[in-house]
């Protein structure tokens, strides 16, 4: 009979899993403890082990591969790359992620499943529909994601780093979403201001833009920016006059490249927000960006946020990449790092 065969296999699996648990260090137990706790931020800890270092892999492959309907390739394509695995730290009143299956066949097994992925599993059901809290948690995360698109970066934050502001021809958020081409061009006034204010032909030009997530800039700029400045100093590289671009797309780098002719340009820009992280920042880097630069010539470090590449680490890493770009006089797929 099928069922007795299943039961035997389940038994074997359970014994194996139990053995593994006893042999292995306490990591799995920590996850279980996190999931069982009641602390407001426990959910984040419980998911900490779920996303390995592989997010960086994607940044180095998919993100610069250009646009397309291909889900496999477009997940992080050009203007709006994003991938993340962590809950927002302010999961707040939704509390800890835990199984809601009332009588699971194997309780501990279920806890292990939850610890292995940030996907919303073990959520149970009312009939065939989700439970109320799960449904509302989903709406909460969607609201946060949408909010980061329509949000703005605060002036005091920009002032703190002495960033003056220029705009692209994006007009307003709705138009920004419909017309990526207009987010690639700085307005005439903006271009004049850049010419009047910025050092020409800098070694490294730093530009910050809200892109698709103002929250990403708000949450990460301070740490990334400070460590990037430090890193450039350590590498012996000279930065030009930094500024903020409102309504920017990745390829705005090319227009700025024409205006200032930098050797290298670093654009810190908010990514397309996901439900599990709406505060993810990307650093796009290019050697001598100019009009007509192809996407595959940009190097990207994506997924910069608390649960992905930590912002402080990212800043230091960007400095290293920029140095390699200047040494090899190239960037993107041609860069050997």
């Amino acid at each position, binding site marked *: 009979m099928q069922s007795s065969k299943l039961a035997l296999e389940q038994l074997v699996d359970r014994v194996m899993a139990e053995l593994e648990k006893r042999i292995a260090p306490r990591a799995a137990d920590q996850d279980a403890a996190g999931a069982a706790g009641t602390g407001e931020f426990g959910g984040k800890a419980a998911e900490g082990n779920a996303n390995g270092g592989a997010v960086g892999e*994607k940044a180095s492959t998919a993100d610069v591969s250009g*646009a397309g*309907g291909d*889900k496999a390739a477009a997940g992080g394509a050009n203007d709006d790359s994003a991938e993340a695995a962590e809950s927002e730290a302010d999961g707040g009143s939704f509390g800890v992620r835990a199984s809601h299956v009332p009588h699971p066949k194997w309780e501990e097994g279920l806890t292990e499943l939850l610890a292995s992925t940030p996907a919303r599993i073990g959520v149970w*059901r009312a009939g065939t529909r989700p439970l109320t809290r799960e449904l509302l948690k*989903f709406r909460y995360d969607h609201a946060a994601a949408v909010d980061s698109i329509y949000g703005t970066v605060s002036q005091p934050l920009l002032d703190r780093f002495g960033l003056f502001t220029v705009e692209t021809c994006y007009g307003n958020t709705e138009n920004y*979403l419909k017309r990526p081409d207009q987010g690639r061009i700085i307005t005439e006034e903006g271009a004049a201001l850049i010419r009047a204010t910025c050092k020409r032909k800098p070694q490294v030009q730093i530009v910050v833009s809200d892109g698709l997530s103002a929250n990403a800039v708000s949450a990460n700029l301070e740490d990334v920016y400070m460590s990037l400045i430090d890193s450039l100093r350590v590498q012996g590289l000279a930065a030009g006059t930094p500024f903020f671009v409102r309504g920017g797309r990745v390829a705005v780098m090319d227009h700025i490249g024409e205006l200032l002719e930098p050797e290298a340009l670093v654009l810190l820009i908010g990514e397309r927000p996901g*439900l599990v992280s709406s505060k993810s920042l990307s650093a796009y880097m290019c050697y001598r960006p100019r009009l007509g630069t192809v996407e595959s010539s940009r190097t990207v470090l994506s997924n910069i946020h608390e649960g992905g590449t930590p912002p402080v680490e990212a800043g230091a890493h960007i400095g290293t990449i920029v140095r390699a770009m200047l040494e090899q006089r190239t960037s993107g797929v041609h860069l050997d790092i």
Partner: protein
Amino acid sequence: MKLSTNLFGKSYRFRDLKAVMAKANEEKSGDQLAGIAAEDAKERVAAKLVLSEITLGDLRDHPLIPPEDDEVSRVIEEAVNERVFAEIRHWTVGELREYLLRQETGGEQLRRIGRGLTSEMVAAVAKLMSNLDLIQAAAKAEVVTACNGTLGHRGVLAGRAQPNHPSDSIQGVKASLFEALSYGIGDAVIGVNPVIDSGDSVRSLLEATKDVMTKWEIPTQNCVLAHVKTQMRAIRGGAPADLIFQSLAGTEKGNDAFGINVELLDEANELIHRQGTGAGPNLWYFETGQGSELSSEAHHGVDQLTLEARCYGLARRYRPFMINTVVGFIGPEYLYDSRQVIRAGLEDHFMGKLHGLPMGVDVCYTNHMKADQNDMDNLAVLLTAAGVNFLIGVAMADDCMLNYQSTSYHDIATLRETLGRRPAPEFEKWLVRMGLMENGKLTPLAGDPSLFM
């Protein structure tokens, strides 16, 4: 071919057939971005009127992208059944619409007429159809395909289990897959989008999904949605793939941007037939989506609906097991809001079915699009009514790797129960054997992923 009309006391004259086709479309941000959309509702209806009087023969005689310049055009042109076409070449596009909607026109007639149509003709008629037209006509088509299981029988709504994980963790993928199976989802395919596009990674995901299928004797098929070249490497290395996957564009240049061409697809086709693990005879899984050609500047000034139809013309060559349009994935610059996504989902499904394809839809949106989960609920119901072969199942609709929202395991289970649809027949028998389903309804056991540990 008449390219002008008088309406609202004004004469509308269109530059060429390309302009008529583009301006006859329902409003799409992608056509606006390309600068080819109708100026306003009046121009749109004028273009529809002009298009409705153009004959199918005219459409064929005036290719939008000449076969000499584009291999997708050649594939489409060579596939036309000349006997069927000869019977209908004098029909106008308006007459074709009415033929499709007539009560005497059933599934068989639809299948036959589809073989005499080019993708441009299919796109043209879709432009004249209302949403309900698209639903009714598509519902007539029954496109059944077979690999290890079968898809597409009338009354069946299948679901792809899409157990993605942000770092391809095998354990994490299995966790989401167990959840899917426990809700009765996975009959269309167990299909994973990998983060890492390498032969080794693809191989380990194929092996892991195959292991689960073997252990629990699940009558379905597996697939890892990496680039076709990567899958070929994995399959040549012995990886167990039932289906081979690729995203398609509607122009040669667009496919060039995807790193594929007909020669490569032919090669992959031979490989999956010789070294794939699927029973067949249908061994391909394709994905498409309006807007990809424009995003790679490979659109030749042709509108995104027509280009999407051309993807189906290309797909038809390989007799796929399944194909879906990832309708709201690419972003608001192509489909701006829920209204446009819903329209595109219905159009794509209809056009695929008229091509004789086993059409599914990834009912989805990104967070920068003006749409939410309620809109997806609506579109999923409309598509189920239209007889869609399958939908995509993601845990709570939130794909934690691709960062977009689709339809959930719960949603597919709900659509089945509410609209009287069943899983694929072999898969339903398996669900019953597992104690997860009785008389087409989930049992109290359903929803517990630890059943599969």
